[in-house]
């Protein structure tokens, strides 16, 4: 185990959505390599608070890589330099003593900055609300085992369902496109028998909402897949495209 580190942080500070914002440089001294990235920020914030300075605001909650609340664009990459993890799962041992770390918020028109590093991801909510569900009411559903699902399909649907709605895909994408996120939900339900009745309606509704939110267009660069903490696959995007075109050109129902 190596010794403690001294780091320089270049952090985006912005008082609120109307503020211009700017980078502020902080020293983070005596940082243990065993700290998580957010714990490192906690330590910096403790010293800021003691000095009477406003602590750096960032979103976080579970701190174990599942709630999708944490974000941070670290040294040019969402969730930092390691693959398949969230920022809260990133540890300081991934950095070098003396390093300068640049920390920015997710950047996208559809994710306006609320304060400092916290952004507003309610656009994702509205996309989910547009159709990310199977319309069944509580009660009055068949016995669970009356809906068999082949294991391969179930597993594939599961892979899509692991998305934590963090927005790293948008942050990573040079076009700020939300295709990976949207396609993950569309895919999960398109694969499962439960999702079939609303399959084509759903893809239209969710894509329409995605467009309305002002996300960019996918040019298949694949950055989203590479940076997604849950390794959601690009196959989902292809699947969504297929369903979308099928719904538009070959299905009766056309709602959007």
């Amino acid at each position: 185990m190596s010794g403690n580190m001294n780091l320089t942080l270049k952090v985006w500070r912005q008082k609120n959505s109307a503020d211009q914002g700017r980078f502020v440089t902080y020293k983070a001294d005596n940082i243990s390599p065993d700290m998580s990235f957010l714990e490192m920020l906690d330590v910096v914030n403790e010293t800021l608070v003691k000095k009477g300075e406003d602590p750096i605001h960032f979103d976080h909650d579970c701190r174990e890589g599942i709630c999708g609340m944490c974000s941070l664009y670290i040294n040019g990459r969402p969730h930092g330099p390691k693959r398949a993890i969230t920022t809260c799962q990133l540890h300081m041992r991934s950095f070098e003593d003396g390093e300068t770390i640049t920390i920015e918020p997710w950047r996208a028109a559809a994710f306006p900055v609320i304060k400092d590093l916290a952004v507003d991801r309610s656009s994702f909510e509205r996309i989910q609300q547009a159709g990310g569900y199977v319309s069944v009411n509580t009660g009055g559903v068949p016995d669970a085992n009356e809906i068999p699902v082949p294991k391969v399909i179930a597993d594939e649907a599961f892979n899509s369902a692991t998305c934590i709605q963090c927005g790293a895909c948008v942050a990573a994408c040079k076009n700020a496109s939300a295709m990976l996120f949207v396609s993950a939900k569309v895919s999960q339900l398109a694969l499962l028998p439960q999702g079939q009745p609303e399959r084509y309606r759903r893809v239209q509704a969710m894509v329409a909402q995605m467009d309305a939110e002002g996300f960019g267009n996918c040019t298949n660069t694949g950055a989203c897949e590479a940076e997604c903490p849950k390794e959601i696959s690009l196959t989902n995007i292809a699947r969504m495209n297929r369903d979308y075109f099928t719904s538009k050109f070959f299905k009766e129902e056309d709602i959007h």
Partner: protein
Amino acid sequence: MSNFSKAFSSSLGKKLIMSLTGLFLCTFLIVHLIGNLQLFKDDQGMAFNSYSYFMTHFLPIKIISYVLYASIIIHAVYALVLTRSNSKARPTGYAEYNGKANSPWTSRNMGILGTIILIFLVVHMSNFWAQYHWGGLPYTKYEAELQNPDAVTVTQLPISAVPLVHSDYVDAQNGTKVLIAKDLYQVVHASFKQWWYVVLYVLSMAALSFHLIHGFRSAFQTLGWDHKRYVPLIRTLSLWVFGILIPVAFAAMPLFFFFFK
């Protein structure tokens, strides 16, 4: 119908247009390459000129050419539209952006590569295609012996020679097959003797290569044509055929003329 047209105005619809026009251009490129390979024939342009005539006068192909021009325009226009809306989607950029950590260079520079190709196309078409259609091109007469088709007599016809029309017939008296055609070959030859032309072509072919390494497979992803079984094939085609074989073959033409003709 309005729904149908709306389908194309959505983000996915625009992408669909990009991919269909892109793929159409890819197929054109194959045909164009095969045709242009005739330039390598040591026949002083007989085959090439005859092919050029066929391509510009056979009706179905003429129709397809119009589709082609439209495709180029639509592809370029939509590229512009998409690029603009993409930059609107991120009004504030990152201070530090490490794109190479997560995506191939080609995929991040399709617009620039496309623009180079567009410039190339303007030069290219104004030089060859516009010349052929509206420029005053010289005619050349090829006479091949029926007995021995390799023995060809070539006569450049003066511009004033009459009649200056394309003709292709068998001259039974002389025992020859005669072709009188616009000599595009000469134009090509002349052009490719200029160094800056060669440089432009070779660089453009590099851009084309990068554009297609990403573009060809990207188009399939956009269409949703993605299956474990075929993806490796598409990737192979993307790289080896559209990324290497085709651009290299095209680039070989100006180089061939510059150095060996």
